[in-house]
């Protein structure tokens, strides 16, 4: 007998809504997110299908607490298209969300777009800066110049959004520690509310991956670890508290939508490749615009990699993904939330993390990773999964 998640999932935990906008003008070397160059009537058909997909979700009266538009490049949509997408979003959110983030590429930031976004109730803009160094931006195959970043940032601030994030990347091929430090300092000079700093990752199906496998660029975990450490120390000193591996915020500006994800709550994903964790299931839409259009037309959604969310699975994932956050996990609270999970299996392993200096714990049962532990979060995660013997993924045939 499979037990379904307890009722508290339905009413008491916040619900997130993610909308994937799959369009990009060109492909970045490092990006593995699903994206396509808009052609013909692709955009209008996409917008209609998002609206149609919202109707397929069994909302059951749930209110959407946070919205996140990601991509792709949501900013590639024109102002009126953004309005159309925003209206579809608001129709299912059950009122204005507490937090509404939109990712924008610097080259797409224009006053008319920003005006529409603010009018819709967007609270947070995430700007894909990557670097302030023109040479490194070139190397990444990005489509903007440093000057465009400054202009975009000014426009966003002028529009008066509550929270602004800058995305930066580090450990780029050929990047020195000094260059990275300069990028961070430049970002701080702009005084954003939030910073996301991403260690360059080699994802399959990217141009960078190809270069890596051809030996043109090399992985250097020692160098990456050093970059991570420097970043954490520097931003901490500068008043940006780290709250997740790659995320830092001034007080009150942490991204609630993402916190919601790491706390293993629920979210609904719309658009091609978007993932959902909702109503007892986890699954994704097909990462292909045409295929997704067909699926939506046929009334199907989130059918790829469908997994039933058992209390055991959610318990393990709450720990694995919760430990990515600096606050870590509150074990007694998780035990109350998933009382049937086999917690005892973990109790051999967790103290070892503490003894080895990878984690710390408080008397009330909160467990969090130390900086060294955070650098090994994936190894720790797979060790935790291994410690829960029976909680493997249950694919649906």
């Amino acid at each position: 007998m499979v037990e379904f998640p307890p009722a508290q999932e339905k009413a008491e935990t916040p619900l997130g809504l993610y909308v994937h906008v799959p369009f990009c003008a060109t492909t970045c070397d490092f990006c593995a997110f699903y994206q396509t160059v808009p052609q013909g009537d692709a955009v209008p058909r996409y917008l209609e299908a998002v609206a149609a997909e919202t109707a397929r979700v069994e909302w059951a009266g749930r209110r959407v607490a946070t919205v996140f538009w990601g991509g792709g490049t949501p900013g590639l949509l024109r102002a009126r298209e953004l309005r159309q997408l925003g209206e579809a979003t608001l129709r299912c959110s059950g009122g204005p969300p507490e937090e509404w983030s939109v990712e924008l590429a610097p080259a797409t930031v224009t006053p008319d777009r920003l005006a529409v976004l603010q009018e819709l109730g967007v609270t947070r803009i995430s700007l894909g800066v990557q670097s302030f160094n023109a040479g490194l931006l070139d190397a990444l195959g990005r489509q903007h110049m440093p000057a465009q970043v400054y202009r975009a940032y000014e426009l966003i601030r002028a529009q008066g959004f509550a929270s602004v994030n800058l995305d930066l990347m580090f450990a780029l091929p050929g990047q020195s520690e000094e260059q990275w430090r300069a990028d961070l300092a430049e970002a701080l000079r702009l005084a954003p509310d939030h910073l996301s700093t991403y260690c360059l990752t080699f994802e399959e199906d990217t141009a960078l991956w190809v270069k890596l496998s051809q030996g043109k660029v090399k992985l250097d975990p020692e160098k990456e670890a050093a970059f991570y450490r420097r970043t954490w120390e520097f931003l901490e000193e500068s008043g940006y508290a780290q709250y997740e591996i790659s995320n830092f915020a001034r007080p009150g500006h942490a991204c609630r939508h993402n916190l919601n994800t790491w706390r293993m709550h629920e979210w609904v994903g719309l658009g091609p490749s978007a993932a959902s964790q909702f109503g007892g299931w986890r699954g994704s839409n097909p990462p292909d615009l045409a295929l997704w259009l067909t699926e939506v037309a046929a009334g199907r959604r989130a059918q790829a990699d469908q997994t039933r969310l058992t209390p055991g699975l959610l318990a393990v994932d709450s720990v694995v993904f919760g430990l990515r956050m600096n606050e870590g996990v509150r074990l007694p609270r998780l035990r109350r939330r998933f009382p049937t999970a086999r917690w005892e299996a973990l109790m051999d392993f967790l103290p070892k993390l503490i003894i080895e200096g990878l984690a710390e714990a408080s008397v009330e049962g909160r467990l969090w990773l130390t900086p060294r532990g955070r650098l090994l979060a994936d190894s720790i995660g797979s060790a935790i999964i291994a410690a829960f013997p029976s909680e493997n993924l249950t694919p649906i045939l």
Partner: protein
Amino acid sequence: MKHDPTLTRNFCIIAHVDHGKTTLSDRLLEYTSTIAKRVMTDQHLDSMDLEKERGITIKMHPVTMTYPAKDGKTYKLNLMDTPGHVDFSYEVSRSLAACEGALLLIDAAQGVEAQTVANAHLAFTQGLKIIPVINKIDLPSANLELCTRQLEDILTIPAEEVILASGKSGIGIEEILEAVISRIPPPRWSDYPTTRMLVFDSKYDSYRGVISHVRVFSGTFKAGEMMMLMSSGQKSEIKEVGMFHPGMIKCKELRPGDVGYIVSNIKSVDEIKIGDTITHANKPAAEMLPGYKEVHPMVYCGLYPLESSDYEKLKVALGKLRLNDSALQYQQETSVALGFGFRCGFLGLLHMEILQERIRREYDVDIISTYPSVVYRVKKHGGQVIEVDNPVNLPDPASIEEISEPTIKASIHIPNEFLGDMMSLIMEKRGSCDHTDTLDSTRVMLTCTLPLNEILVDFNDRLKSITHGYGSMDYELGDYRPSDLVKMEILVNGDPVDAFACIVHRSKAETQGRSLCEKLAEIIPPQMFKIAVQAAIGGKIIARDNVREMRKDVTAKCYGGDISRKRKLLDKQKEGKKKMKQIGKVSIPPDAFIQVLKTNH
């Protein structure tokens, strides 16, 4: 035709590796028309590919030739090819025992080598007439004067007896054949009152059972007769007798002086031991032919399949190899680190290497071997003596009064200039030099005593590297000598890894322990936790190293859309770990063992 044993000559060829023994044999077969030239493949007598590749003979294959001599009589010449390596010295000695004479082959360019001397001595002790042959005289680098002088000085063989030859171009072949007839005596002991024949090899044939290669000394043997093995008293009916021409040809009977084969009801090579004497069951001989002994493995190691699913395949391979090789011994064993496998005993290192290679090639099983070990004699308090071939079985040190180890008597030939380096190597290997003989103005021969376990791993390679390939070594087993030996264990994160346990001399434990720890620490992939690799003797740590600590293993971006993918990835990592060898809490990739053992071999 009446059988006349005086028209038979039995001989073999002894030589150092590569001195042209096989080529010369082939020329003899050609000259006597035993094999037509066109069907000759190069090196006819070495039948296994591996033998051809390594240029060494592992198993002997006799052949009977007919030669019309200059004296007008036609002789039957039986040529025994002998293995050229010390691992098989017992088999060599039995092969020699089946002959009355030997061609001693010397490479004109290389001169007398360690094995030449060892084999010549073996032949002398068997009472064989030796015909010295200097081979490859047509080489530009041939130095006949040096070779002749060496023969006189080292082996006290008169220069005027030397025959000059070239197997390659056929020089001296007739002279050799004439010398075989004129110098080698006719078959000995043919007038012994009862029947006796010597078994000098056995092969397994899946259709006919065991085919034994024999030399008849007295009496005749026919199919249908009851025979008896004198070492065990076991009786069996002779099903078939025959000779090698060079293929097996059935004949009516084997007569005194003949070399041939017999097939009986015996189904296992274990039961017909090399060196045994066969006699008629109804009228058995009073005494066996001299020189029989049981051979025991000298070197042991564990063999494990790399893929545990190959265990059955490995078992079958060992079983089949053993059908033809009674010197190979094996029994099932389990290792914490390597899983299910076999403890195998070999005559020596070459024997071990060859069999491992055959398992890989002929049976297509990837195997890994543990650290090789010799057989130690452990005297416990109270006088009980046990033999230990696996370090894991060494009893509690508190119960041990004394451990003895096997030694070897090595004879090492090297150019003078490397004497110093060679002496240091011998010292390093805990050996002692008993005496030094000058071979000629440029070469010396060292006679030394060395512990067998010191030459197991890299002695020969080091010898070759010190002497730039010009040195050579041969050895015979010496006696057991008490020694300060200890069991060294390798611990990973505090857990002993049985595959790396070894018995070492106390004085070398630390160096060897440090090197093993270093290698292992380097090979184990970086770990999340601090992991020590330690070498310990009786619980006392004598060396340690740390496995590299993992620096970074974290995904940068992990949002709602990444959870599923990430989860699958982590699951996969966990599965990957299952395929590793689990030593306590540490996962070690299976090839880590191979890498460490390889670098140590």
